[in-house]
């Protein structure tokens, strides 16, 4: 296949246009290698991040997502290769100036042992912003993240949802050129996560900030990402517009990542008008990968255990979503 020469495979050009590739990318990673204890944990031949876009990086645990984010943050010096900021390589000794253009949110809130206000103000204080402006900006972002009432509370007394909101406010108050988010919702229960994701999407409207989101929750990536990069075993296997990656994964492993949330064992018994009926009863042992919009489960035999008998019907978005080639 001709595609084999392309380090980052792209799907056919039938879907919405990708960001303008003629403009100099805001961030570019070239020929990057990160080794730890002589083991290669990350290899990125070429990755560009354009101003104003949201790039979501998905992949299983240990794929190198967080490592890539730390390199992008200028906090981890790669073994080989470099990152280019607006086309200029990030030189040794220039990291601090670059780090003051970014905002970083880590999976754990890691709040400082001071008040919520003190935490959110920390980055502005590092930048030498005046006290009056700090007060104004911090209060604005506390309000936007619905934690204004916690302003003077010690960070140690917050719930995990409140702590993560504080952590997000702490990065957003910097109004950074690049916002780097490493699993920002991972420490939360699902209800809190859904609420914060809603709020975050609402704040997401401003076009000026470029975002890189690392997550292993595909739905977060799909919701927030303009482009999707699939990272497996330290390599970017596919990077393209989110719709394109979802519609046309380059191989079975990428397909497994982008359809992981609706992968069932069963037998396709009917498929018509986008409705797919899968029998998950005993005896049918075939993997069916589907991206279901709506999942209905029903049990035919009320007396039998729902675990080992019954049928599931999927309201699928097309027969090409079915992957009957999976393991038998």
């Amino acid at each position, binding site marked *: 296949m001709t595609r084999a020469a392309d380090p980052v495979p792209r799907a056919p050009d039938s879907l919405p246009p990708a960001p303008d590739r003629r403009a100099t990318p805001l961030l570019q990673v070239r020929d990057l290698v990160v080794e730890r204890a002589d083991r290669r944990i990350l290899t990125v031949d070429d990755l560009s991040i354009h101003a104003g876009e949201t790039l979501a990086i998905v992949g299983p645990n240990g794929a190198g997502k967080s490592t890539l984010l730390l390199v992008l943050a200028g906090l981890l010096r790669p073994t080989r290769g470099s990152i280019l900021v607006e086309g200029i390589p990030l030189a040794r000794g220039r990291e601090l100036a670059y780090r003051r253009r970014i905002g970083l949110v880590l999976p*754990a809130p890691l709040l400082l042992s001071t008040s919520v206000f003190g935490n959110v103000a920390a980055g502005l204080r*590092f930048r030498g912003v005046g006290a009056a402006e700090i007060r104004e900006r911090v209060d604005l972002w506390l309000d936007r993240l619905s934690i204004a009432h916690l302003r003077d509370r010690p960070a140690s007394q917050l719930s995990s949802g409140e702590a993560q909101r504080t952590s997000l406010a702490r990065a957003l108050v910097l109004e950074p050129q690049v916002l780097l988010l490493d699993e920002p919702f991972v420490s939360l229960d699902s209800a809190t996560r859904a609420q914060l994701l809603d709020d975050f999407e609402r704040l997401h409207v401003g076009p000026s900030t470029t975002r890189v989101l690392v997550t292993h929750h595909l739905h977060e990536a799909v919701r927030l990402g303009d482009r999707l990069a699939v990272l497996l075993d330290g390599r970017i296997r596919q990077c393209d517009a989110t719709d394109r990656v979802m519609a046309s994964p380059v191989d079975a492993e990428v397909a497994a990542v982008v359809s992981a949330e609706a992968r069932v064992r069963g037998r396709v018994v009917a498929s018509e008008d986008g409705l797919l009926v899968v029998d998950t009863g005993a005896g049918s042992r075939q993997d069916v990968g589907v991206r279901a919009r709506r999942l209905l489960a029903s049990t035919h035999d009320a007396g039998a255990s729902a675990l080992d008998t019954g049928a599931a019907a999927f309201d699928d978005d097309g027969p090409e979503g079915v992957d009957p080639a999976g393991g038998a």
Partner: protein
Amino acid sequence: MIPGVPWTSDLVEVTLLSLAVSGAATAISLLIGLPIGTWLALTRFRSRHLVLSVVNTGMALPPVVAGLVVALLLWRSGVLGGLGLMYTPGAMVIAEVVIASPVVMGLTVAGLGQLDPRLHTQLQGLGASRWQTVLWLWREARLALLAGVMAAFGSVISEVGAAMMVGGNIAGQTRVLTTSIVLQTGRGEFGNAIILGLVLLTIAFMVNGVLTWAQQRGPRR
């Protein structure tokens, strides 16, 4: 003046010298131990474990050994004999610094080592310079760092062996509370020794009280 205790003015003098020697030694130990401890806590290098072992051994250094080493250096024929420091408060401060610096160093390493290693990354990700990062890490580890100051002060105010060896317990010059207690006890003047002991305990309590207050105020973790 305490009635019936003829040497009250001596007591004040001895107490003040104890405070001065211990205070100076603690301050100098902090200036030495805090930067080196911070560097050891935040840097990874090949012989780090060996260096940490040496520091931790230093924390358990017998004061008489520290006194012996300092005495050898300051003795008239020693390397630093020309300074004429032997049997002066200066010599005592040097010996106490040798004793207290590893304590500050070791507890700084332990205190910073207890922090979440990702905190360093997070601070830098918020745009902190190297100094701003270190200042915030000290702030986060302040409970342990102040415990280090208390341990250092506690070890030097109560120390007797080295103070005796390099100070000489000379009345009006190098006599401190601990060496006085040894002297009074040796003479069988137990009443005097007990008063001196109570003064020593009171000082230790007051200094640690202030440090504990500083340690515990402000938002808790």
